């Protein structure tokens, strides 16, 4: 998935998908990867409150700054979904390793609490994260 500039070629007149034959491609290097994180506070938040997008963004920027300096803060992160203290993030696949290292080693402070991240899952495909997040339930409460 290179981001080269290519002249747009003339469009063929008819779509070429008329055949009913099996066609298949493999995606090995997707442009984006996804990360499912939980923000951990110590001592815990009194209210079981939602951590808002701005807090996520600033805390993530802090952690990337701490570990990688200005280069780290330039990593583009899209906050796709927030649920309670958890968030689903999208970032370029090439920055995934750096990002993972930065968030796992981060300890910050805010209003007398220390903040850290717990990585609940990383995947190059968002669909992969959904299955992983839900799998524990099936094993929980054995013998019940």
């Amino acid at each position, binding site marked *: *998935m290179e981001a080269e500039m290519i002249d747009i070629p003339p469009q063929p007149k008819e779509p070429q*998908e008329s055949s009913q034959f099996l066609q298949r491609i*493999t995606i*090995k290097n997707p442009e984006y990867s996804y990360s499912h994180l939980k923000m951990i506070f110590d001592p815990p938040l009194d209210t079981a409150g939602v951590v808002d997008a701005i807090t996520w963004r600033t805390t993530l920027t802090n952690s990337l700054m701490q570990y990688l300096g200005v280069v780290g803060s330039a990593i583009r992160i*899209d906050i796709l979904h927030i649920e309670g203290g958890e968030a689903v993030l999208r970032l370029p696949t090439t920055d995934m390793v750096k990002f993972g290292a930065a968030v796992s080693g981060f300890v910050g402070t805010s209003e007398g609490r220390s903040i850290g991240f717990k990585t609940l899952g990383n995947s190059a*495909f*968002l669909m992969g994260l959904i*299955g992983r997040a839900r799998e524990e339930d099936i094993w929980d409460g054995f013998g019940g």
Partner: protein
Amino acid sequence: MTPLPKCYISVHKSPEKTILPHPFNHLVDLLLPTDLYRLISNDLGSSPTLSKPLQWHRLSIPLSAIVETGFLTKYIKTGNVLMLSRGRIDIDNVFSLNDGILRLSLTKEAYEKTGLTGQPTRFGNTGPRKKHNRHLVEINLRDPAMLHGKKGFDRIVWSFQNKLNKKVDFLFCDLDQQKNHTDCPILAALGATTARQVQVPEVTSSSLVRVPSFDSPLGSVLQGGGTSLGAEYNREVWRDWAMHVYEWLALANLGPADRIIAGDNIDSYLSTYAVDQGEYEGEAGMGLTRVRFRGVIPASWILGVWRDVEKLVAPVSIGNRKEWFSLTVHGLENSPISWDRSAHGSMTGGENGYTLLSIPRKDEGNAECVKILTFEVVGSQDEHS
């Protein structure tokens, strides 16, 4: 750099070829427009697949219980069951059973103790000196030689009774339960007290969300066209479109995610994600319904659900147009196999699952037909191709 997972995207692949070979599933999400769901929900509830109860159990038993005559005859020789033990596939001893084949994925220590013959596993053997740390023992329990009194079989029973004799947590699903659904004394004796139901779904309807275009951009192609720059561009456009649709389906299955809700206007500092909206519902958005099934879900049952929905949706058209729907299945991360006999590992992520998307479109004669797009995702350690 760790190896990355892969995604296979196919067009015109028949659904049964994707669904049936994938035995260990724990989550099935059916996603469709709420308007469509309202029309078919009653019929769906009474459809052949969903109207019958489907149960699964949790058992805490030693391996030797599987080879006891009663269990062996009822559930393996004449019946068919699905079993998977708890544990991490690259670290612990993991046992699975499907179609009569018992797979033992063993650590070096356990393998040497049991004295059964196996092969080094495909994954989980990548130590610094490439030593064989894990082994896979495959036993076909339906083999005619697998009977009490036969030497080879008694050897297996001995190692189960004396070496691998700890109690293990198993997930258990009887694939023939429609035939013999009365409470089974064998299971009761093994302590399977509560049966859990699969067929009762968790239905969530969302507020309006933005929906992407399900028509691939004009001129873009999946394959072919040669090596010219223009053809490469057309393929690139198709790939980007398909990945966008796939990403969107995942976001919709998330609940739906904040970013695809119609009224969402987040600052680009926080997120630059945007749905490439098509002619579908325009700016107003569309309500979505997710029907979620959980448990140990047999592949044939999933195919049944797909067929039922297909049949119910076929005659329906809303506002002169046929509707789309999608089915996503997530496999258990720590099963020794994903599809068929493909070995499966889980070092950095054991995702193995697939999404089927049925899109209506007009063919050349302008008649309505359906195109099925299949997305199959496997983690970095998986032989499936």
